[in-house]
């Protein structure tokens, strides 16, 4: 294949061209309630050619039929010539030649699907038997192994194997009209053993689903909120991370002004960074999908905005360095600026200290999801507790945090000493689910808007 790729690149008349091919296999076992939804294996192969010409724009071709790359390269080239766009420049990166083959302990490719099914069934049974009020369950095992080949006309050639193994459980409980749910997942760049032995976690899910039935909805209002590490991680990804993606600012002078480096965003205790090079995390790769090496990029240091995430194009436009954050969800998409592993660095306040002086507040735990419209954000906690007189009180549900980013970052007044990475993370920007990891300690935020009935 390498020969076909290099020949298609060599023969292209484009000023820049890249080819990315992906071949993968995905095994999935899904239970819904007592029934098996599916236990199947799917095969996915496809590719993308992206190029530009001076005086034209980006031309892109995506395809499943990998047999004629010259033809795909011509399609992309014709596309590039058909649009008159602004001149495109890419910041230089060193040409790389790299090939990884992973070796996994108890590689899931060698594990029979029956064994994967048994494991999912075992977890699912725990949920089903836990309590009659659990009326529905989802238990899904999945693994995916893909081989991505990337080459460009600047001389880079990278082959990377990308394995991932996942287990996810959710339970739905019901009492009359009251329907609640709880969810946990584990996702690792690892072999089959990484998803074994999570029976305790399954119990936690079942117990929480049942407990939420008797939890009252939180009363709407403004509260001091303590976010657990997972909620804080989603918060930093959604509320701040997306604003630090340079594709938002690179062509928008007003946005650049808003996100000017050196601006204070938070107190001295706040440091936020993105690092795509940390071994074993979901957002980790040696190179991004443009062939740029990944690494750590500080975004906020001691409360001050110090950096942002770039592709080669946004970096060139802003006269900054590429950061290795050009990522694509699959061969179906050109790379865009995305986060990798984004985190709030640990501080020195213990959880007990953090809640000790709160008369009435909310402890927001985990996240069903988050969405941001730049300055505005919305997060649904999976569950929460009231904090009363310095102590964690009763369980509450329907905890949705919303607010304005700038104000909220300034209102982070305590950063915990208990940093952890989340076991699971996905970013939905533009192209849908891309694996990322979010990390944080507990954080405390003053004066947060919580919606409620």
């Amino acid at each position, binding site marked *: 294949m390498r020969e076909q790729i290099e020949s298609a690149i060599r023969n292209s008349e484009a000023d820049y061209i890249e080819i990315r091919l992906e071949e993968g296999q995905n095994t999935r076992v899904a239970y819904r309630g007592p029934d098996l939804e599916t236990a*199947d294996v799917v095969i996915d192969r496809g590719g993308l050619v992206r190029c530009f010409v001076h005086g034209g724009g980006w031309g*892109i071709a995506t395809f499943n039929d990998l047999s004629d790359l010259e033809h795909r390269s011509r399609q992309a080239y014709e596309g590039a010539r058909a649009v008159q766009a602004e001149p495109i420049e890419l910041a230089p990166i060193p040409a790389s030649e790299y090939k990884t083959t992973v070796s996994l302990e108890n590689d899931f490719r060698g594990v029979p699907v029956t064994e994967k099914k048994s494991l999912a069934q075992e977890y699912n049974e725990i949920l089903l038997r836990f309590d009659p009020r659990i009326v*529905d369950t989802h238990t899904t095992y999945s693994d995916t192994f893909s081989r991505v080949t990337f080459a460009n006309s600047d001389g880079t050639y990278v082959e990377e194997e990308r394995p991932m193994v996942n287990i996810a459980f959710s339970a739905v409980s019901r009492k009359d009209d009251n329907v609640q749910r709880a969810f946990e997942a584990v996702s690792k760049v690892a072999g089959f053993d990484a998803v074994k032995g999570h029976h305790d976690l399954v119990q936690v899910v079942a117990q929480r689903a049942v407990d939420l039935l008797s939890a009252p909805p939180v009363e*709407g209002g403004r509260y001091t909120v303590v976010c657990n590490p997972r909620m804080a991680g989603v918060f930093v990804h959604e509320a701040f991370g997306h604003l630090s993606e340079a594709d938002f600012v690179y062509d928008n002078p007003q946005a650049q002004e*808003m996100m000017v480096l050196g601006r204070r965003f938070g107190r001295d205790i706040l440091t936020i960074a993105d690092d795509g090079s940390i071994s074993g995390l979901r957002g980790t790769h040696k190179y991004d999908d443009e062939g740029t090496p990944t690494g750590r990029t500080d975004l906020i240091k001691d409360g001050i905005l110090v950096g942002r995430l770039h592709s080669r194009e946004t970096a060139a436009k802003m006269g900054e360095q590429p950061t290795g954050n050009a990522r694509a969800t699959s061969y179906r998409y050109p790379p865009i600026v995305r986060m990798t592993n984004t985190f709030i660095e640990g501080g020195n306040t213990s959880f007990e200290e953090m809640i000790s002086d709160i008369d009435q507040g909310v402890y927001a735990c985990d996240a069903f999801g*988050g969405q941001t*419209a730049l300055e505005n954000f919305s997060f649904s906690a999976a569950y929460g507790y009231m904090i009363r007189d310095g102590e964690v009180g009763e369980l509450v*549900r329907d905890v949705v945090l*919303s607010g304005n980013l700038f104000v909220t970052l300034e209102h982070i007044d305590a950063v915990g000493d208990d940093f952890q990475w989340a076991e699971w993370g996905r970013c939905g920007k533009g192209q849908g689910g891309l694996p990322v990891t979010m990390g944080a300690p507990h954080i405390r935020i003053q004066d947060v808007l919580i919606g409620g009935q």
Partner: protein
Amino acid sequence: MLERLMQETEQAEVFEIQSEATKIGFDANKLKSFEVEETQGIAARVVADGRLGFAASSDVTALDQLKENVLASAELGDEVPLHFPEPQRGPAVEVYSPELATLPPSRLIEMGKEMVDTILQADEEASVSIDLTRRVRETTVRNSAGAEVAVRKAPFSITLEVERVRGDDVITLFEYFSTATLDDGYRAFVARVAEKLRLARRLATLSSGQMPVLFSPTGAPVLGLPLIHGLNGKNVYRGISPMAGREEEELFDEKLTVVDDPTLDGRPGSSSHDDEGVPGRRNILVNQGRLTGYIYDLKTAALARTEPTGNGKRSLFSPPSPSFSNMIVGTGETPVGDIIAGVDKGLLVETPLGLGQGNVISGAFSNSLSLAFKIERGEIVGRVKDISVAGNIYQDLKQIEALSLESEWVYGGIRLPYILLPKLNVVTKN
């Protein structure tokens, strides 16, 4: 492939998909990219020894592996009393317009430029990104009962993203337009987005409390999404839908009617048959507030011992599941202008954040709003920021104050009017 599978199983089905798309991209008000997308794939289902199996591949040459995978899947599969349908005639539905299928890229570029201009006229500081996609999508489903259904569609879609930053005052709009007929509907679409931008120039403040809330068609999915989940036969069969077992009950205000209709000409969600070869038909699910039905695919209908409703939808890599074709909430009789004129003090919801993130199946919603307006003495007076609404459709749709005469398609396959609820909880920073 079908013949090969039929030799070794009781029932078999082969689903094939082929699609070609041309996409024109604008970024930051400027033409940026030209993309050609070709998709192909094949999926198979079998029933062997009573057990259901599934497999798929986007490599259409990997047929031996596909066959091996689907037979292996059936060995592990559950016993399901499912029967692939015999050949059945479906309604005639226009979803392929040759003019739309061959719309020249130069025309897509013109349309994009026109849209950028319209938005910039409304606000010269706006930054506009647009994707215009012209597609031809062909699917074929063949099964061992003799059905062979081919569906060819030419959907056209536009995603429009507008960002406007002024100091720390930011507005973002993300809007979606789709059609399967060539007309200038995109002009009305972009004009509405421009109007929202104009209205958002003025800011207003509102205090927390209970008040009348008007959901525009782009805001009304806050209420529509729990209905979509609740009416899904899978959630009904599992017993988690609050609507399960309540057929013929008056669950909602008598103004509310909800229909699934795949027979509408010119809509991308329409189709003569679903992806399992079951004929499409118009299904009334909520009739003047009374629950009258749910949507089913073959498997869920078989498990629930009822009839499939022609709602089996699938992507290449997943087995079919029940899904709406076009979800339509019936309109009312009042022009939206009159509805607004009748509100003394209330809120107009245009763009919710976090749609689908909460406990949707329970009917509960709690959304912060990225775009909402204050209505005062019958007029829209300005944008309200830092605000959220919350409620539960199983309570709040029992009393609907008004539905508008006008309605719009949103998110592709959902048609909604303006919906005025008399009293909803609104939380603001004041």
